[in-house]
């Protein structure tokens, strides 16, 4: 029984409180919260700089991340997300949940699941650029400081999600 408990998920409220305390510490120490999408933006900007430096520097979406003097990947949120990957890996290994597999509903093929995952990721990242933040940077961190936009974003995500979830029931159930 003890071993089973060791490998099961934590109580969601306990996890929430842990993440909340982490955000408080971050605001006290650095003056801002967590983020995620910014790391992907830095990576894309760095790739574009490598392929077409002039084009990348003249584009405001990319230049924001690459116009500084240091290397664009030597950035707070890039290292934070590298930490997220590492932390997930550590917990996955300790909880024996690390496994190469495709997580999907019972009625969908793996290849279709991967196509949908790619498409969903594409839409989500595009949307997060429009909204200036994702679930971590806007909903979670902005929500904690009561940013109006953060709360509007959060409710919109739920509205958007629930408005199609039952239409694509077969994907997941």
């Amino acid at each position, binding site marked *: 029984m003890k071993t089973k408990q060791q490998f099961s998920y934590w109580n969601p409220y306990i996890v*929430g409180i842990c993440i909340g305390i982490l955000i408080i510490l971050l605001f006290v120490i650095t003056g801002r919260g967590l983020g995620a999408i910014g790391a992907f933006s830095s990576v*894309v900007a760095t790739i574009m700089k490598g392929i077409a430096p002039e084009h990348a520097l003249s584009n405001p979406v990319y230049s924001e991340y690459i116009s500084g003097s*240091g290397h664009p990947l030597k950035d707070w949120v890039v290292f934070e997300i590298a930490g997220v990957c590492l932390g997930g890996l550590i917990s996955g290994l300790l909880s024996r949940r690390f496994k190469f597999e495709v997580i999907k509903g019972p009625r969908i093929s793996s290849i279709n699941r991967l196509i949908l995952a790619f*498409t969903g990721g594409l839409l989500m990242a595009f949307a997060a650029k429009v909204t200036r933040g994702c679930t971590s*940077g806007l909903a979670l961190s902005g929500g904690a400081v009561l940013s109006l936009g953060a709360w*509007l974003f959060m409710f919109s995500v739920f509205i958007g999600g629930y408005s199609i979830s039952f239409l694509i029931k077969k994907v997941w159930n």
Partner: protein
Amino acid sequence: MELIIAPIRFNYEVSTTVILVFALFTGLLFGFFLEKAGFGNASVLIKQFYFTDMRMFKVLFSAIITAMLGIFWLSYFRILDITQIYINGTYLWPQILGGILFGFGFVLCGLCPGTSCVAAFTGKIDGLAVMCGMIVGIFIFGETAPSMAKYFNFSALGDVTIYEILQMNYGLVVFLIVIFALACFWLVGKVEERFNKKLS
């Protein structure tokens, strides 16, 4: 009364290496907590949208409530200067319509940007596919946004908070949100019970 000591912020005397190691450590804890919540697995996270396991809501809201209360009390006791912390800017329509689009993407892939990294690094191939999709999504935005900037900057309201727009007391809004959240926690418990019964 002159007690304010935070945000501490890193000044230039702290080396870049120290800052980046701190960022890595912060992320490590965040990723660890996300995996422990079950969010490295899309089939766990997606249950939120079928009302069968509302972990996503519980974690998100309890984290927001905890951080909101901490920040409020630290500023109330003049330890944290609330005017010096980062408040995400409000862009009314881009954030509402973009949020809906984000919700579509979320339900299609079952993960969010942060949790896709946790999924990928616990071996889930679909997590990796989400990360690849995100790279392409940002590229498409990068190539199209400059010509559509006026739409993306439409209805910008600045760094406005809920209590400022409602012209209400900060503490009162915090209190009302806590009450709202507690009511939601009770409600989602009932909803889960109902939908799980329906399925079995």
